[in-house]
């Protein structure tokens, strides 16, 4: 009788297990890559951005409103830049979110299925358009309009600095358009996700469809819509290329028809030729932007966690 070769079931004597262990280790490494990346980015942003803060002084940088980095007596006040980003993003949200949420309502509730299946891909397409193309169109379409309006509004004004059309409002319009796809798709999912019984219950009480949408459905989708807004904020505040030529080329107070600089456009416009301290301050601007983004991300993850708990 031949003896069958016994394959040990002992884990450690199997050659397969070496491969197994290696595979597992490699996968684990891959997973930590992301952690490594975020950690490195954080470290580098801080290392690059801190020196200028030390050299010029935190107060002077963050709260000074004179930005004259080149010249005999350089001044690095980025208050207006920070304000521009905050106000510009805020205005973009004010314009983009209502249009976005209403379009989401259209897709989820109002539109006949066939129409919705035409409009939805249109929105996905809008999401994929490279930001430079928005920049191009903004430059050639929105700026001329703005210039015309500017000429009319400030006719004969002695104090207004004519910008040739690039101003805060132009940038806000471009930003509002860019956040539309994000706001629409997330709002639509949230509206679709509300419990099914809400709509018939409202209709059975004699409410019209519109009343049902605005008094029951949208409030029920509140947490998802807020998530959409926060994501929109993240998108808007980080946008650089689309608005760099539309928003203007000098740092001013964020008034609608002023030529302004955002945190992002300041970096993009000046990094190419900035040297020494000027360059370092640009990195400080990057650090501030990074800080804003991290705060927004934290708010977002808190929202997502509590939003998930709500539906239980």
């Amino acid at each position, binding site marked *: 009788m031949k003896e069958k070769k016994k394959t040990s079931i002992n884990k450690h004597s199997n050659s397969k297990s070496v491969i197994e262990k290696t595979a597992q280790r490699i996968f684990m490494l891959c997973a930590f890559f992301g952690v490594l*990346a975020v950690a490195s980015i954080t470290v580098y942003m801080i290392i*690059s951005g801190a020196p200028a803060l030390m050299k010029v002084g935190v107060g002077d940088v963050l709260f000074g409103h004179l930005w004259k980095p080149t010249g005999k007596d350089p001044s690095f006040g980025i208050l207006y830049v920070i304000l521009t980003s905050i106000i510009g993003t805020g205005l973009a949200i004010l314009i983009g979110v209502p249009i976005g949420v*209403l379009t989401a309502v259209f897709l989820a509730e109002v539109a006949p299925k066939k129409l919705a299946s035409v409009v939805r891909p249109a929105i996905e*397409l809008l999401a994929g358009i490279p930001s430079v193309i928005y920049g191009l169109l903004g430059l050639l379409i929105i700026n001329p309009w703005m210039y015309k309006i500017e000429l009319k509004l400030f006719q004969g004004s002695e104090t207004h600095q004519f910008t040739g059309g690039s101003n805060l409002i132009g940038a806000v319009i471009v930003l509002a358009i860019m956040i539309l796809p994000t706001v629409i798709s997330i709002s639509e999912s949230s509206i679709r996700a509300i419990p099914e019984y809400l709509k018939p219950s409202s209709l059975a009480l004699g409410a019209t469809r519109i*009343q049902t949408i*605005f008094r029951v459905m949208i409030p029920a989708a509140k947490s998802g819509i807020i998530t959409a807004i926060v994501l929109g904020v993240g998108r808007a505040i980080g946008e650089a290329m689309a608005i760099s030529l539309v928003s203007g080329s000098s740092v001013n107070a964020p008034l609608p028809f002023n030529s302004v600089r955002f945190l992002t456009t300041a970096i993009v416009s000046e990094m190419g030729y900035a040297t020494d301290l000027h360059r370092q301050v640009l990195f400080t601007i990057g650090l501030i932007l990074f800080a804003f983004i991290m705060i927004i991300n934290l708010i977002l993850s808190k929202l997502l966690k509590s939003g998930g708990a709500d539906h239980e």
Partner: protein
Amino acid sequence: MNEFVLRKKKIRMSDIILTLTIYMSALTTVVLLLGIMGYVFAKGIFVITPTFLTTVTSSLHKTVGIAGNIVNTLYIIVLTLLMATPIGIGCAIYLSEYAKPGKLVSIIEFTTETLAGIPSIIFGLFGMVFFGNTLKMGYSLMTGALTLSIMILPIITRNTQEALKTVPTSYRSGAIGIGATKWYMIQTILLPSAMPGIVTGIILAIGRIVGESAALLFTAGSGFLLPASVEEFVGKVGESGGTLTIQLYLSMSKAQYDVAFGIAAVLLVIVLGINLLTKCISKRLDVNYTSKRRKG
């Protein structure tokens, strides 16, 4: 009694106004899209000539060409994917098959989400400082590719995770039950099943890479010449190269608007193509999944 109580028509002003705003919003969105695409194509389609697509801008011949940029774009796409895809898939496999729920996993998932939310200009700054300065790679395609690969990691990881979720647990238990080792099971059963989803992720990443500009501006730079030989082609990795989007930006800044629109039109065609591809693959994914369920 001729009074029809149920038929009194109620005209609610607020209802009418709200309905109007809903339709107006949807119309705005559609008009925007059609407007953007229409305008770009109208202004750009005639710029696209064979010369435009296959040569490099030459002041000698007074021609404009974006061939160099096209090559740069392709180069960066391939380099980035080569680096990011294995790592992204590996991360997804770890999270989905190996990791036990706990603090570790939440940290990994949190950082993946964070990466997805960081704007491209921050990646650009990081790439410039870390790869460009610290690692002394300067302005080169490689610097750009390394930067972009970090940026698209979340896309690959997320899509692979979703794809792995759709693989029925019965496949896994079936394989392990026969005595297959985990890695073998992943190789032979999971990855093939999850392939459509992974491919979708890759295509979405390509879309992101093609449209990217801020992250490349200070990493890959703006060179636009075509390599003249195979050695030059390989060496290109270390040289600066501007992608289509970067070239668009530069042309825009120099007021060369027809070139800009030509590039824009090319980019739109690529974006459209990618969109269609993703749709086709998701349809096949659905078909595969539903047919598998029917057989099961």
